[in-house]
C-alpha cells in the first residue's frame, strides 16, 4: 500500500510538528495537534499510541489512529528489529531498535502506512491514519 501523495502546501504546515526520536526514554509530551490543516476530526483522546514489538510481531499489527497521533514502537524482543515503512518515498524508518529501545513517529497525513522489519521482513504491520 503506497502512502498518500503529499500536497506540498499542506505538508509545509504540518511537517514542522513531525518528530522523530530514538531513545530509551519515554516519549515526551504529546505534540500539538495540527490546526485546520484537514477536515478530519482531531483525536478525541490522547494523540499517542503504542506498538509493542514482541515475539517477532508488531502488536497490534493493525492500528487505526487520528491525524497528528504519535506512534511509539518499543522492542521487547532479545534481538533487534526495525519499523520501516514500505513504498517510495519512505515515510519512516526506525533504524535498528535493540532490546527495549523505542522509536516514535507522528503521522501528519491520512493514509495507510504499511511497514515491516528490515531484519525479519515476514514481520509486517499497518498504521491507518484517518
Amino acid at each position, binding site marked *: 500500500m503506497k502512502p498518500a501523495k503529499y500536497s506540498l502546501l499542506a505538508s509545509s504546515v504540518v511537517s514542522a510538528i513531525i518528530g522523530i526520536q530514538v531513545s530509551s526514554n519515554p516519549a515526551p509530551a504529546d505534540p500539538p495537534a495540527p490546526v485546520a490543516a484537514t477536515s478530519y476530526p482531531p483525536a478525541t483522546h490522547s494523540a499517542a499510541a503504542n506498538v509493542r514489538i514482541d*515475539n517477532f510481531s508488531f502488536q497490534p499489527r493493525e492500528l487505526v489512529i487520528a491525524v497528528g497521533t504519535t506512534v511509539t514502537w518499543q522492542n521487547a524482543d532479545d534481538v533487534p528489529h526495525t519499523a520501516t515503512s514500505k513504498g517510495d518515498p519512505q515515510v519512516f524508518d526506525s*533504524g535498528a531498535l535493540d532490546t527495549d529501545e523505542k522509536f516514535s513517529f507522528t503521522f501528519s497525513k491520512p493514509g495507510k502506512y504499511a511497514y515491516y522489519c528490515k*531484519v525479519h521482513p*515476514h514481520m509486517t504491520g499497518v498504521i491507518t491514519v484517518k
Partner: protein
Amino acid sequence: MSNYIEKDANHDGIDRRGFLKCMAWAGTGMVWAMKGGLLSARAFGADASAQGADFTFVQVSDSHVGFNKGAYTDVVGTFQTAVSRINALPKAPSLVLHTGDLSHLSKPAEFDTVAQVMKSIKTERLFFVPGEHDYFVDGGKRYLERFGKGTMGTGWQSFDYRGVHFIGLVNVANISNGQTALGEIGHEQLEWMEKDVAGLGSSTPIVVFAHVPLWTVYEKWGWGTVDSAQALSYLKRFGSVSVLNGHIHQILQKVEGNVTFHTARSTAFPQPAPGAAPSPGPMKNIAADKIKGYLGLTRVDYVEHTGTLATTDSTLADEA
C-alpha cells in the same frame, strides 16, 4: 540416543572401515574434507580422518558479535573457542568460510572484533558472505568496506581452489529492502552466476556458500530463498554440488539428487527448530550451565564414492 544415523540415503552397506567419527560442537564449526572431488563433512575432535583428504576447509557461521542476552553473554568467547578448535586440528584447513551474521548490529567495533578473531585462525585464506545483521543497518556499507575486497555487487564472489569451484552468494541484500520476506539472490547476481559456471566442466565439484538456506526450511520465519531454484538450475549438470548455509543456528541437512544442503550451527546461540516456538528468537530459559545440552554435537559421515552424507547428532551433555 546419541549415536543414531539420522540420514543414510543409500543404505549400500559399504564398509569404509566404519564411519568416520565426526563430532562438531555447536559452538565451533564444520570441517569439510575434499577428496577426489567429493565433499565429506566431519567435525572437530574427530580423529585424523582428514589425512588422505586433498584438502580441508572449515565453515563457521552466525558469530553475532555484539549480542549479549539471556544465557548468551560471551559470544566472543564461544567464537574464540571455535577458532581454537580450528587451530587444534591435526591438519590445518586451507580455507575458512564465514557464512554470515558476523556481527549483531553492524557496528564498527563488532566488525573489528570479528576481523581480529578470524585473523587468528591458522589457514591460508578467509572468505565471507554477509548475513542480514551485517546488512540491514546501512545497506552493507561497513561490511563491504571490511570484508568485501575482491567481491562483486552486494558482496558475491567465486574462486577456484585445487579443482573445486566455490561460489559465495549474497541473499540478504533484498531482505532489508523489504522486497521479499525470504532471502533473495536477485537478477543481477543470478545472471553473474549463470555466466560464472558456464565454462566449467560438469565434473567440477561445486561448493556454494550463502547465509540464508537455499531451500525452504520454514517460510513462516523467512527461512528460505525465494529464487534459489533458479540458482540451483544452473548447477543441475554438475555431478557434485554442496550448499553450505547458516542463518538458522542449527544443523539441518537435505540431499536432493546431486545437491547436498547443509546448515551450520551458530557460534553464538541456538534457535528453535522450525515452528517449535512462537518465534525464531534465541532459545530462552536455558540456564548457563545447561547451554551445552542445548547446543550439541553433530557427527557427519560421508560415504565417499556415492557422495552422500550421514549425520548423527548428540548434545554436548551426552558427550560428558
